[in-house]
C-alpha cells in the first residue's frame, strides 16, 4: 500500500477543464451565425458548372429555388433529368403554381424582388432548362439566377 501512495504523489496534475464548455460554446455560436438551415432535401444530382463572373445572392429569404438534374436514385426514378420543386419532383406545368405560392408566402412589398435561382446540374441538356425559363416568363418571374460555383482564375 505504501508504494501505491508514493506513486500517486509523483503523478501529473489533472488538466483544468473548466473552460472547455466556453470553448465549445464559442464554436457553437460561430456555426450558428455562419451557416443557414438546410430547408429541402435535394433529390437530384447537383454538380454545378463553374464560372468566373459570379455574383453573390443577397437576401436569401427572397430567393426561391428550382432544382434540375438527374435523379440521385436512378433505380427508382430513371436517368432522365427531372425538375424538383420544394421536396418533390414536378413537371414543367407545375411551375406557375409554384411561383404563385412563393409569391404568396412573401410580404407584399418584397414580391417584386423575388429571385428564382436555377440550380441545374452541368450535364443537363438545355431543353428542359429552356422549358422552365419559358414557364417562368409566362408566370412573371423575370429575375433569375443561374447558380454556379466560383472558379478561381489562374494567374498567367
Amino acid at each position, binding site marked *: 500500500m505504501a508504494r501505491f501512495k508514493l506513486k500517486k504523489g509523483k503523478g501529473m496534475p489533472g488538466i483544468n*477543464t*473548466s473552460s*472547455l*464548455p466556453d470553448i*465549445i*460554446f464559442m*464554436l*457553437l455560436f460561430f*456555426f*450558428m451565425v*455562419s*451557416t*443557414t*438551415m*438546410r430547408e429541402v432535401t435535394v433529390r437530384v444530382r447537383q454538380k454545378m*458548372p463553374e*464560372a*468566373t*463572373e*459570379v*455574383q*453573390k*445572392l443577397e437576401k*436569401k429569404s427572397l*430567393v426561391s429555388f428550382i432544382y434540375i438534374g438527374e435523379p440521385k436514385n436512378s433505380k427508382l426514378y430513371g436517368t432522365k433529368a427531372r425538375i424538383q420543386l420544394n421536396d418533390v419532383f414536378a413537371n414543367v406545368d407545375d411551375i406557375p403554381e409554384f411561383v404563385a405560392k412563393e409569391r404568396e408566402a412573401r410580404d407584399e412589398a418584397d414580391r417584386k424582388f423575388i*429571385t428564382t*435561382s436555377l440550380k*441545374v*446540374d*452541368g*450535364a*443537363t*441538356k*438545355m*431543353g*428542359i*432548362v*429552356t422549358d422552365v*425559363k*419559358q414557364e*417562368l*416568363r*409566362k408566370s*412573371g*418571374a*423575370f*429575375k*433569375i*439566377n*443561374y*447558380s*454556379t*460555383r*466560383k472558379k478561381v482564375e489562374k494567374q498567367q
Partner: protein
Amino acid sequence: MARKAAPEINAGSMADIAFLLLIFFLVTTTMDVDTGITRKLPPPVENPDEDVDVKDRNVLKILVNSHDMLMVDGKRMDIRQLKDKTKDFMAIHPDNPDYPEVTTKYIEELGKDFPATKGVISLKNDRGTSYNMYIQVQNELAKAFNEMKNEKSMELYGVKYTQLVDDKKIKVINKLVPVRISEAEPEDIGGQ
C-alpha cells in the same frame, strides 16, 4: 445561526451538452454561399409572329448547337475568342459598316452626350446543348461586359466598376454600357 453554503452545481457535463448542440448545428445547417450569374428574362411576347426589325449589322448572332459547338456570325469559333469578339463588336466604331450603328445618348447625370452603340448580342441555343456549355457562353459574355464597364469606369472616375460606391456613378456606367443580350425564342430543333 450560520447558513450553510449551497452546494456547488457540478458543471462537468456542461461541455457534453454544448458538444451535443454543436453537433446538431453542424448536421442540420449548410455553409455554402449561393453564387451565380443573374439575368433578367424578357416578358412574354404577345404576337409571336411579329418580328422586331433589327438591322443585320447591329446583331451579333451566337449559336450553340447540340454538340456544344459555337458559331458566331456564321463562322465557327472557339469559346476563348468569344469575349474579345464581343468586346470588339460592342465597342464604338463610328462610320464603319462592319460594325453596329452608333448613335448619341444623353446622360442626365453628366449633362453631356455620349456615343452609344446600337449593337445587340443574340444568343440562341439548341435543346441538346449542355448546360455547362450554355453557362460558359453566358460567363464569357458577362466577362466581356464587365471588362467594358471597368474600362469605362476607369476612364470616367479612375476606379474600377466593382469598386464604385456611389449609386449615381454606377447608374451612369450602366447607362453607358448596357448589357444587351437577347435570347431567341426557342425552337424545337435538335431534340434531346
